[in-house]
């Protein structure tokens, strides 16, 4: 261990000092071996024997065929994705070629137009699926076997997100739970605070923290050219809580205008926290620092004891700096963003969908595998660090790596939970990936709610 460390260090020095490409090449080989060995050990954990290979018999002999997968999921999650295909590859002899890129959303459309579409793409938004179905003649409907799996393992609403104009195209893959507030259990215990059960209790707790001489909330909306999206999640969560799921559906389908009084009320309710200079932005600066703080850094002041609460999705779990322990008695944990509603328990969610651009039997077989409970469990087992969950009800929570993921799975599976998909992903791109984002930045940097919602409404196509 120590020996490899020093070698690696020396090589890094050499690389920095000399920039000699050769040295790096050699170092690459050295590094590769170590990694390969480590990864190989992990590969064996999920046992392929547990999956039922007969499910893929109907697709014929697939030995030696290849399926190309193109996604927005890159390292380090890429490895866990690839590992989770092993049982399928062993069953059928199909080789799955994985390609991840952060430029996925732009490049996928380029490839489709050039006639170079991948066999399978993981679409992170239903809005993108709709664009592809309506603008290009490339995507193919999901095979019957996949549809049967989705009927069996997913709730009706998840199937609807993968359906355009009555045709079912894309089965859900992973899912996100966004209605979380991150906090430090030990800080709460030391101060004698309790996890709030209703929105009012949460505001009372915030006031209590202010009275104790601290700032309760921290937030960050920065995300490169997508800056503002964490803000849209905030608003969506609050719309679900102040106006309810029915109004939420009317809102993203534009049955009610964006500047409807109920939406304005939700903005103002969120503003009681986000635009309250006694509440934010703990450890980071004034209210306007929300706009410039990277979303990944938004919760970090919790670790320094400067901030008490940070609303972020379940995938924030993997964004904590290395060495942070996530757990009920660890450094950080999350509670469900509470609501005053007693009849419903709204949950804001998100997820990817599997779109296919080819109907070769091996592609259909792979689509079917991805929509099965077998895959969900295999993925859970190949993700030892956690940070992944699925709405697939065949997923055994025991297989999930962390108690936090189990909590997410529990929320997704809760029959009382009213799950709504991220509205900005469902709205037209001009709004959902445009003015809604920029509007959130304007909103925290001084614009009034009315100005912002009027501007977004005016931009609705």
């Amino acid at each position, binding site marked *: 261990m120590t020996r490899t460390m020093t070698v690696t260090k020396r090589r890094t020095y050499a690389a920095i000092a000399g*920039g000699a490409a050769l040295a790096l090449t050699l170092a690459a080989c050295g590094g590769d071996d170590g990694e390969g060995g480590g990864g190989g050990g992990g590969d064996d954990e999920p046992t392929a024997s547990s999956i039922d290979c007969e499910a893929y018999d109907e697709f014929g002999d697939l030995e030696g065929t290849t399926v190309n997968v193109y996604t927005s999921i890159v390292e380090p999650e890429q490895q866990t994705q690839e590992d989770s295909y092993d049982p399928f590859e062993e069953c059928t002899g199909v080789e799955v070629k994985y390609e991840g890129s952060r430029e996925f959303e732009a490049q996928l459309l380029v490839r489709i137009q050039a006639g170079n579409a991948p066999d399978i793409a993981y679409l992170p938004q239903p809005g993108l699926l709709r664009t592809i179905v309506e603008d290009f003649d490339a995507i193919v409907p999901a095979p019957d076997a996949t549809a049967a799996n989705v009927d069996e393992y997913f709730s009706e609403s998840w199937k609807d997100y993968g359906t355009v104009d009555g045709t079912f195209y894309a089965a859900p893959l992973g899912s996100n739970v966004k209605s979380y507030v991150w906090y430090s259990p030990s800080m709460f215990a030391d101060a004698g605070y309790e996890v709030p059960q209703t929105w009012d209790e949460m505001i009372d707790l915030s006031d209590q923290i202010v009275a104790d001489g601290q700032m309760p909330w921290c937030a960050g909306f920065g995300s490169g050219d997508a800056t503002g999206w964490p803000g849209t999640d905030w608003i969506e969560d609050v719309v679900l809580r102040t106006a309810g799921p029915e109004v939420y559906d009317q809102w993203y389908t534009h049955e009610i205008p964006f500047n409807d009084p109920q939406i304005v009320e939700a903005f103002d309710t969120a503003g009681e926290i986000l635009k309250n200079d006694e509440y934010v932005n703990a450890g980071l600066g004034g209210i306007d620092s929300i706009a410039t703080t990277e979303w990944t850094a938004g919760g970090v002041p919790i670790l320094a004891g400067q901030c008490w609460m940070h609303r972020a999705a379940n995938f924030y779990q993997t964004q904590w700096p290395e060495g942070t322990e996530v757990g009920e008695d660890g450094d950080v944990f999350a509670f469900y963003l509470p609501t005053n509603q007693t009849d419903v328990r709204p949950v804001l969610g998100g997820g990817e969908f599997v779109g296919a651009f080819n109907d070769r039997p091996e592609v259909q077989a792979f689509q079917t595998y991805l929509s099965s409970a077998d895959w969900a469990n295999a993925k859970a087992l190949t993700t030892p660090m956690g940070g992944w969950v699925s709405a697939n009800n065949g997923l055994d929570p025991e297989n999930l790596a962390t108690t936090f993921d189990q909590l997410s799975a529990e929320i997704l599976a809760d029959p009382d939970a009213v799950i709504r998909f991220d509205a900005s992903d469902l709205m037209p791109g001009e709004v959902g990936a445009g003015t809604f984002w920029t509007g959130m930045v304007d909103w925290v940097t001084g614009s009034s709610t009315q100005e912002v919602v009027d501007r977004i409404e005016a931009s609705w196509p």
Partner: protein
Amino acid sequence: MTSTPTPPIASEDSLTTQGASGGPRPVKKLSRLEKRAIAAKGKLSSPWASGIAILLAILWTVPTVGLLVTSFRPQIDILSSGWWTTLRDPEFTLSNYEQALYGSSANLATYFVNSIVITLPAVVIPITLALLASYAFAWIDFKGRSILFVAVFALQIVPIQITLIPLLRQYVQWDIAGTFWTVWLSHSIFALPLAIFLLHNFMKDIPPSLVEAARVDGAGHVKIFFRVLLPLLVPAIASFAIFQFLWVWNDLLVGLTFANPDSRPLTVAVADLAGSRGGDWHLLTAGAFISMIVPLVVFLALQRYFVRGLLAGSVKG
């Protein structure tokens, strides 16, 4: 670097004035020019000017220094405070570089090789073709030469972005999509107009008498090209080679669109370092410095050619 251009201009002036006025007085003329040069030097090297130059240099360098300092800071520090706070509380680590180089199966060092494999042919191919084309444009009189030259030159204004999809479609039809060939071809296509323009201007500057003398001695096109012109063209070729090298090495768009996962250049890999949701952006500083090393070495080593060649090719055109 900024001071380098001055001497050639001065000598060029002296050459022309010398040629115009002819014979006996060049010594006097030169000395006046020299005086002027000295006066200009005096003005340029006033403490004020130097101060401003140094200030500009510092301001210009600060972001890069910040990047360098950041690349050695621990993750938690990068996330929670600015790089300038290291003055107060210095804490450095190599873990960013380790993670960027060997952190995942996407090993940056393998992409280093890809970048080299992509860059070398993408520099050699356009230069070879452009040399031949510019020779024809400069020294072979054929019908429609001017129109063709203007057409080639006009291609420079076609933005690379609008050609991506048609080009990729063509590659898919030819069944070569995803290989190194598409990347080399694309870089060559995008480089040729400027390469032909620069080298043509340089070739045109070579006195016709040289070429004519060679022709009188019985040299054909091939001999003229290799024996007479090529040795004179070395600075221009070197400068364009550096130019093209830096452009190809730093290119993200072409690599992203045309290269398949196995032939991705370093830039594409660095762009993906930040992780699916951008959570690992603290690795980007280290990644940026790793990818900067080669162009930096090339640039520093060949700076002289770079400046000289740029002046030779474009300014005189």
